[in-house]
């Protein structure tokens, strides 16, 4: 195709014929969407060497629509190198007059393009001469370094929520290394401008798996913008970073759909947008937590099971809003980036990595859901026990306290505090059933004297020689062994051995006994799991059995 000098003209104008240019007819394309389509089309149809554009086009010439068209050419990435061609604007005004007019009349400052490289503003009478000699195209680097810094393009939309939804998904997709198929870059000049400023190719550097390698995962995305790329990018992150195993992502696009959803407890992770309707955007800052649609859904999910892992997506970057979300029970949050607060690529990359870390954290905390579920069942069982109200209430409270400590545990000591709190249930059981007599012997409720149980290495079991315990303060494991063997008539000696070591582990931490905490067998530490979820889980398995014996 031959290269041509294009000129944008309205019907009836004839400069193209007169000077041998190629006419590109302007047909009242006034919105960004229309201009975007039209510009892409004529660059596809023609090989344009340079282009001439009257600054005023259309029925309302006061809008300087020609400048808008020029900006679309410079900022439409899909045009490739074609967008760097020389642009000759036509007006009888000077560039200072035009930008002065825009400033005075509160218009968009599109005239800033006139002050950039590769642009010439001429009188209509100088078009022919200028078209012959002006050939100043620009490079991508010049666009980035010298042109964009001079442009002044403001957001024309009212809704920040919508902005962040449309912008943020492209930012996230970029760092997740996915080219979105389900979302189209918005045609607003403002978006194009911001993208031109921020869009450099970055390949994700951290490709390691983030958990659930063996079983894949079940997830839900609750977002009214799910179809606009968010579902695609979330699915991509889950699939590429979890495993080759199946990942299932359910999509809920409205508050009503989320309210009626019945399978939250089956999910490994839930991604929940804070605002599920554009109406909330306008009054977001004045809304209370309880009024936000996302918070309502979050509360519903946490009522079903506090251990269900929820990551909130929010367009707000205000620290106090993040705190509100965590206070409401969110397990993590992700800020949907907005062009309103452009952040550096490095920070965006961190934001993406934080999301992955949050997802990993949610997978790591997946056991909470099972523990919470078990606790609810245990509490129901305790409620059914006859005549033990104070005792059962105390155990129920201890279960709740231990769970709440565990659910927020991040540091190793916090896991140990949750362990110690759960251990108190053993002491409570002991206190309920074992009493001291005046002669320092001990009685078990309805089971006679507490006998002196000891481990016999030969028989690999606990035995007693019918001797009563006669001590000011016998160890808790011994009291519990008496209840277990004498009152409940149980015979799993390994269970008492496990209880013995769990109590020892607790004592090691509470009394800071390094020799206990650092005890090893076959090169493995036996007691340091008190600092990890595993320690809690082992103790909890025993507590479950104990409550079932009651």
């Amino acid at each position: 195709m031959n290269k041509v000098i294009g000129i944008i003209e309205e019907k009836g104008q004839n400069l193209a014929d007169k000077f041998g240019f190629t006419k590109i007819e302007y047909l009242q394309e006034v919105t960004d969407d229309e201009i975007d389509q039209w510009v892409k089309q004529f660059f596809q149809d023609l090989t344009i060497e340079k282009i001439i554009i009257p600054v005023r086009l259309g029925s309302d010439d006061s809008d300087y629509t020609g400048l808008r068209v020029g900006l679309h050419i410079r900022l439409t990435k899909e045009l490739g190198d074609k967008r760097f061609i020389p642009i000759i604007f036509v007006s009888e005004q000077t560039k200072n007059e035009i930008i002065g007019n825009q400033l005075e009349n509160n218009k968009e400052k599109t005239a800033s393009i006139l002050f950039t490289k590769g642009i010439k503003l001429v009188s209509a009478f100088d078009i022919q001469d200028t078209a012959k000699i002006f050939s100043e195209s620009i490079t991508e680097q010049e666009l980035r370094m010298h042109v964009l810094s001079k442009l002044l393009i403001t957001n024309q939309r009212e809704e920040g929520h919508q902005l962040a939804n449309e912008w943020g998904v492209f930012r996230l997709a970029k760092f997740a290394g996915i080219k979105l198929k389900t979302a189209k870059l918005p045609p607003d000049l403002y978006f194009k401008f911001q993208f031109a400023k921020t869009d450099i190719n970055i390949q994700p550097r951290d490709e390691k798996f983030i958990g659930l390698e063996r079983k894949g995962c079940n997830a839900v995305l609750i977002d009214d913008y799910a179809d606009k790329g968010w579902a695609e990018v979330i699915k991509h992150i889950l699939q590429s970073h979890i495993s080759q195993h199946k990942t299932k992502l359910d999509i809920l696009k409205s508050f009503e759909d989320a309210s009626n959803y019945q399978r939250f407890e089956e999910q490994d992770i839930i991604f929940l947008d804070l605002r599920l309707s554009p109406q909330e955007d306008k009054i977001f800052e004045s809304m209370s937590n309880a009024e936000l649609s996302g918070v309502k859904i979050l509360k519903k999910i946490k009522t079903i099971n506090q251990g269900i892992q929820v990551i909130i997506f929010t367009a707000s970057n205000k620290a106090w809003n993040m705190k509100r979300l965590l206070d409401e029970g969110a397990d993590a949050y992700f800020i949907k980036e907005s062009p309103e607060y452009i952040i550096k690529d490095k920070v965006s990359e961190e934001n993406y990595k934080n999301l992955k870390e949050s997802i990993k954290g949610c997978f790591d905390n997946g056991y909470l859901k099972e523990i919470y579920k078990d606790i609810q069942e245990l509490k129901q069982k305790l409620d059914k026990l006859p005549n033990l109200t104070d005792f059962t209430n105390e155990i129920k409270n201890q279960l709740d306290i231990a769970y709440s400590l565990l659910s927020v545990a991040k540091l190793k000591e916090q896991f140990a505090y949750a362990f110690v709190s759960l251990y108190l249930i053993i002491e409570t059981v002991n206190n309920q059933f074992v009493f001291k007599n005046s002669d320092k012997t001990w009685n078990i409720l309805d089971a006679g004297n507490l006998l002196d149980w000891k481990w016999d290495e030969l028989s690999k079991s606990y035995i007693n020689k019918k001797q009563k315990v006669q001590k000011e303060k016998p160890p808790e494991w011994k009291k519990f062994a008496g209840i277990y063997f004498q009152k409940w008539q149980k015979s799993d000696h390994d269970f008492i051995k496990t209880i013995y070591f769990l109590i020892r582990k607790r004592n090691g931490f509470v009394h800071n006994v390094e020799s206990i905490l650092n005890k090893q067998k076959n090169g493995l530490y036996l007691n340091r799991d008190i600092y990890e979820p595993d320690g809690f889980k082992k103790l909890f398995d025993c507590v479950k059995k104990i409550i079932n014996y009651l």
Partner: protein
Amino acid sequence: MIYLFDDNEFGQMSNNYGVDMLDELLRFKGIIKHIYLSDIELDDVFRDATAIFIHASFPPDDFKSRVCFRAEAQGLPLVVFSGGQVATILRDENNNIILEMKKDRFYHYLIPFLKLCQNNPNEKVDIKKLVYGENYEIEKSLIIQDRLGIFLAGKIGNFNYETDFSGRSQEYKDLSELFYFLYPENHENEFSKFDEQISSAKEDAKSFLKKLKSLIHKVRAKYE
């Protein structure tokens, strides 16, 4: 009476325009009424309406449609303004109807426009002065300058004032509007003198543009 329909749902009229628009409108209560709810009797409105300005998302939709329909049927100046719109779109066949106007721009121009109406109580509401702002005459003459510049560049080498600026052409109307701006009381005579002078002088396109620019310079000097 001009009727302004804006539900002002989130208090934008007080917060978004630098001044409290609700307070500002009170200064013009004799010429504009602000309606923020649809529970109004439209017959009463259209009995004394001289213009209708309505927010594109004034609820409910059918109410806005009815208001626009009646305004058009009655031949009233009508402006539909909205937040998302970038450009101003005038109805092709009737420049007294503005189908879309950016809300910021509408409110930016509204108070100067109302002042103008207040100072000229006997004139019909001229919506163009809302579109182009307080400096309507300057703005419009600059538009004419650009428009005629392109037109005249197309006539280089074969410009003929009498045929190119024939009485019914848009170019002729543009030129006569400049004289209206310059000599509102006596524009026909002044234009006629200019017309005769150019016709006999056999100007080329470029020198004619120079003359045109000199006229526009005078308009700017007069209204600035």
